[in-house]
């Protein structure tokens, strides 16, 4: 497809054409992403609604079609938030206050640059993909800290402090979980990580790296400040935490960032541990026309796995009470960290001595 576009834009100088094509690709990723984020808010309210024996939003119709009641809700919400006044509190640092939501949102979107949607569908296929992801997911917390500091409010400040401490501790557990993936796959390139899991559902990394898989996902929930780790915005304690002073679009940007992060973490978990775009049972009826395509590798598997984790996020929120701030620290430092270290040692041993069933063939070049 890229060649086709180059041919189409052949009247332009090549660098300009490249920029245009990259921008087009970014749009192709961002637009569906933003729509998913908007509709994830609706999905959350609906799913939690049904879990709590109520309906969820069902009044706002979609272009007047009664049958689609509720589907217009995210658009109406966005419109409402756009129309609202941006209130800057007295004594707030104006520049930082306005900068914070952007700082929160940008990394959540930028991280998608290296996520492989399919075997060839990726914006930039860089070799340090894993490091890039780690760096960007850690950057998001600056938005929260800056917001808490710039608001000049005690509640926001407490939220920011909590967030800083929480992210620092969970970043480490998350990083170590990814080291396990790195050792097992022998590459930092996300595409190659997926390729290293080729086979079927049993050769994906979730099974050999099971504790790391759980820890990565739970740390991901903590990183996105979602229940039961939502102490930074714990509604009943510090009201809304870091974004207590934000209204209108600033508030909306924080929300976009949170939901974009949910989707990102779900996508990354799918890539690292559930074989990304790979089919769980690739050989199943491969000759059949429709079923064979369905059971072949493809982006639909990535979306499906991603949705599974997104649903888990919502399910957690409906089920669990909120941790206390020091208990989260305890869980991160005293439970997750030791487990990850032990498992890294274990997995390295398996890889170095090429112990079957998982590590007898691949990843030779790293260990030598």
């Amino acid at each position, binding site marked *: 497809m890229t060649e086709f576009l180059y041919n189409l834009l052949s009247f332009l100088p090549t660098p300009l054409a490249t920029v245009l094509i990259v921008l087009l690709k970014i749009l192709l990723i961002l637009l569906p992403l933003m729509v998913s984020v908007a509709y994830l808010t609706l999905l959350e309210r609906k799913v*939690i609604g049904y*879990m*709590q*024996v*109520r309906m969820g939003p069902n009044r706002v119709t979609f272009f007047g079609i009664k049958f689609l009641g509720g589907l217009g809700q995210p658009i109406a919400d966005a419109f409402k938030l756009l129309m609202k006044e941006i209130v800057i509190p007295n004594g707030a640092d104006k520049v930082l206050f306005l900068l914070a939501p952007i700082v929160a949102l940008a990394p959540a979107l930028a991280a998608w640059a290296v996520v492989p949607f399919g075997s060839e569908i990726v914006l930039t296929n860089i070799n340090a993909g894993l490091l890039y992801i780690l760096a960007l997911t850690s950057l998001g917390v600056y938005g929260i800290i800056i917001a808490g500091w710039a608001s000049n409010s*005690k*509640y926001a400040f*407490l939220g920011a402090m*909590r967030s800083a401490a929480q992210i620092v501790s969970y970043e480490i557990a998350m990083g170590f979980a990814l080291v396990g993936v790195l050792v097992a796959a022998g590459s930092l390139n996300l595409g190659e990580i997926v390729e290293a899991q080729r086979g079927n559902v049993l050769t994906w990394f979730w099974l050999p790296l099971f504790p790391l898989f759980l820890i990565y996902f739970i740390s991901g929930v903590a990183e996105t400040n979602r*229940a*039961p780790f*939502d*102490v930074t915005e*714990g*509604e*009943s*304690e*510090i*009201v809304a935490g870091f974004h207590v002073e934000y209204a209108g679009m600033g508030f909306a940007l924080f929300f976009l960032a949170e939901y974009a992060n949910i989707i990102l973490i779900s996508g990354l978990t799918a890539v690292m541990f559930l074989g990304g775009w790979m089919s769980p049972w690739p050989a199943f009826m491969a000759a059949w026309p429709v079923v064979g395509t369905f059971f072949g590798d493809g982006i639909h598997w990535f979306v499906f796995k991603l949705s599974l984790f997104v649903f888990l996020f919502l399910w957690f*929120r*409906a*089920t*669990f*009470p*909120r*941790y*206390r*701030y*020091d*208990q989260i620290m305890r869980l991160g430092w005293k439970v997750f960290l030791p487990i990850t270290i032990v498992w890294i040692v274990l997995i390295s041993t398996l890889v170095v001595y090429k112990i079957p069933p998982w590590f007898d063939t691949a990843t030779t070049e790293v260990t030598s």
Partner: protein
Amino acid sequence: MPEIRNMTLNFGPQHPAAHGVLRLVLEMDGEVIERADPHIGLLHRATEKLAENKPFNQSIGYMDRLDYVSMMCNEHAYVMAIERLLGVTPPLRAQYIRVMFDEITRVLNHLMWLGAHGLDIGAMTVFLYCFREREDLMDCYEAVSGTRMHATYYRPGGVYRDLPERMPQYQPSKWRGDKEIAALNSNRQGSILDFVDDFVARFPACVDEYETLLTDNRIWKQRTVDIGIVTPERALALGFTGPMLRGSGVEWDLRKKQPYEVYADLDFDIPVGVNGDCYDRYLVRVEEMRQSARIIKQCVDWLRANPGPVMLDDHKLSPPSRGEMKGDMESLIHHFKLFTEGYCVPAGEVYAAVEHPKGEFGILLISDGANKPYRLKVRAPGFAHLSAMNEMVQGHMLADVVAVIGTMDVVFGEIDR
């Protein structure tokens, strides 16, 4: 070198966990509470003073609005105080009805408490589950009194009316189809007693449902075990009553220790805690809901078998029927006197207390022989509990303040009065 000072945080009155209008001034060292100073009075409505200017009967409605999540229990204490001054005893059937509604109220209150406590600690689903059951009990209130909350159902000398023979039903509307209406009405075909009976039969399963979400949940236990510990000695010294006292292991329940109405004839247990922490108080209240269901069942069985009057046949206290009033001069006079002047209560001083869902709710009534109280004093259990705030949260973290407010089950209607 700058001086390091503690941070003072204003917690409320506009705060999602302030349970109304509590204003807490917290002195904090980081997240740790050094001192908590509750400020009250933002919901002061001068109920006690208002009662001094009205005939006795006209203040019953104010009692509902004291603790506005356990309405009939408030009425009960007030009505009992008047009855004691007058020296009358309501008919047995009225006593059973009162006990039944006291326990319905207890379940209502504890459901509200459980939901709010869960929400404070972050478990929001329990809240909606609790409200599902609360809705049915509110319908019972509505069936006997016409309102869902502020019932004004108890009267000196009995209760306003006998239990209705027919439970109100959902009507068809454009939002609900026939099938849905039929399903909603399926347990409303008989009298209110049938409805309550059906509720009591399915309620223990509902409590099990709340408990699966909380009781063995690790996060819930981490958030409540060893939080806000009160020793039995301190609990007594601080004037704790109700589940707050029983959570600390003191077996004190007015229903057993100073039985009023027909509690002496009923079979139920008093749950007590061991450690006096938030978790024990949670367990005590959950068990109280199950015991209340047991009491309600016994009342339903008795009320089914024993029809009879629910009000004293003394028209100085109770209004005559409409028919009597139209045909009989004396009844008309009684009616007129009752609704204008009320009745005079012999001079004296009386204290009547009930085991309110939150603790001992008492009314001190002083009469000088007029048709209005000379002085009315409300003993609100929440006031004593809230006074212990500082002691309970010192050294805990900010998140625990929320858990402690929740476990106290404070309602500002009764604290500020």
